[in-house]
């Protein structure tokens, strides 16, 4: 984050501003994490009873049903994930300004699209999109259903296309494994599904919408907190790196591109930074973890002229 954007960010009022400060926010509303699934479900169905839509017996029945059917993030449809992804993206773009360079963004989108199609989740609700962020931070973020963001600082860790491909592929890996959605507290998902069960019986109108929106908002906070403050679990980063290596090989890139990028990142990262320095395992640790996956590929990444020329043309000024 640049100095000026950090100032803007820190001056934001309200609970959104808590993000990035490393403070665990006390989220308002009825749906905090300490409540059990049952309690949350009960709260929603109580609403149905109080509004006269359900009698108690039916409400109990729905509560029971939801306990059976609501499982977790897997039950979030691509369509719902898409709206979550949009909101998480808007939140990312509150902290980082977009880098408004059409040629560079277009190059990144073609590269990203080719990689996404070779991933294990090529189809998302409206497809993958990639955007460069105007920041010296070394950061890359992805939101559910394929919104991917890469800072200029991160692109400067890439000396060739195979390395840039590795950065995008790592983020696609997070999308593919639905790591963002897994940061949402389970109780919220249960609550949302309970609302749906009631809605399909009879609409609850604005009260239901208010409640669903609150669940939505808290879900966005869950994801943003994890992604921006604490970072994902190491196991998720390993999964994303493994997915990246697979994508690179499938397209025809040298997976050592990831290693090359990590080597530069190792030099460029500033201790104490609020970017990958904070949210990711160290580059050295990641290199050691991916090495066994690289197989017989030559450790020196070849740079065919046409590939290197277009890379430098598109990202040379980044």
């Amino acid at each position, binding site marked *: 984050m640049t100095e000026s954007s950090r100032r803007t960010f820190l001056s934001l009022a309200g609970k959104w501003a808590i993000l990035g400060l490393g403070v665990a926010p006390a989220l308002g509303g009825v749906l905090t994490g300490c409540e059990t699934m049952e309690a949350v479900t009960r709260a929603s169905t109580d609403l149905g009873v109080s509004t006269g*839509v359900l009698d108690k017996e039916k409400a109990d029945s729905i509560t029971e049903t939801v306990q059976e059917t609501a499982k977790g993030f897997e039950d979030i449809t691509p369509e719902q994930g898409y709206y979550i992804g949009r909101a998480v993206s808007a939140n990312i773009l509150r902290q980082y300004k977009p880098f408004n360079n059409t040629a560079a963004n277009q190059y990144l989108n073609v590269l990203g699209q080719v990689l996404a199609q070779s991933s294990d989740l090529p189809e998302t609700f*409206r497809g993958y999109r990639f955007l460069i962020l105007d920041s010296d931070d070394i950061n890359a973020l992805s939101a559910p259903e394929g919104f991917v963001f890469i800072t200029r600082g991160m692109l400067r860790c890439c000396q060739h296309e195979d390395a840039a491909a590795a950065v995008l592929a790592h983020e696609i890996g997070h999308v593919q494994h639905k790591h963002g959605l897994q940061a949402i507290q389970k109780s919220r998902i249960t609550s949302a599904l309970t609302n749906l069960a009631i809605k399909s019986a009879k609409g609850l109108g604005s009260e239901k919408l208010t409640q669903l929106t609150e669940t939505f908002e808290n879900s966005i906070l869950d994801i943003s907190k994890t992604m921006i403050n604490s970072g994902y679990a190491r196991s998720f980063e390993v999964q994303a790196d493994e997915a990246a290596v697979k994508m690179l090989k499938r397209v025809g890139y040298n997976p050592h591109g990831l290693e090359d990028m990590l080597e530069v990142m190792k030099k460029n990262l500033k201790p104490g930074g609020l970017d990958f320095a904070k949210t990711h395992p160290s580059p050295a640790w990641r290199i050691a973890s991916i090495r066994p996956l690289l197989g017989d590929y030559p450790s020196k990444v070849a740079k065919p002229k046409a590939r290197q020329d277009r890379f430098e043309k598109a990202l040379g000024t980044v």
Partner: protein
Amino acid sequence: MPKPTVDTVVDKLKTGAAAASEMAAKRRMRSVQVQEGQVRAEPSFLSKITARLAYGDQVEVTGEQGAWSKITLPKSGAKGWIHTSALSKKEIELSAGATSAEQLASSNELALAGKGFNAEVEGEFKAKNKSLDYTWVDRMEKFQVTQEQMLAFLREGGLPASGGVK
């Protein structure tokens, strides 16, 4: 189609799994779970697009090859391939005479179409969080990459895409 009542929805939710296996139809139907499902001539993203499907459209799966499903479109009878990640995971079992309501209730996936976190919730969320700016999110979504651009990119970059983009 009569509107589902609380009772029918509760019943269907409760018996959904049982009903689905009971119906155990001969035809394996699945729904398109992305906004636009692209049907291709061959099981590869490099292959020609022969049809476009809308969200929620149903297709019959007649075979599989890797991550691709061979499908038949119920209306036209046209055949083609679609990447399996574009289809809902749960199969929608159709039995002769099943009403749409029953199909909806027996499939969690399809029953959720358009519900839950949707455009309406996003509108409410934006109203509550006025400082959130979606301008660039919308702009991002307009970035388009054509199949021709991808093919040219692979060719020019000397990328065989032999193990992937398929």
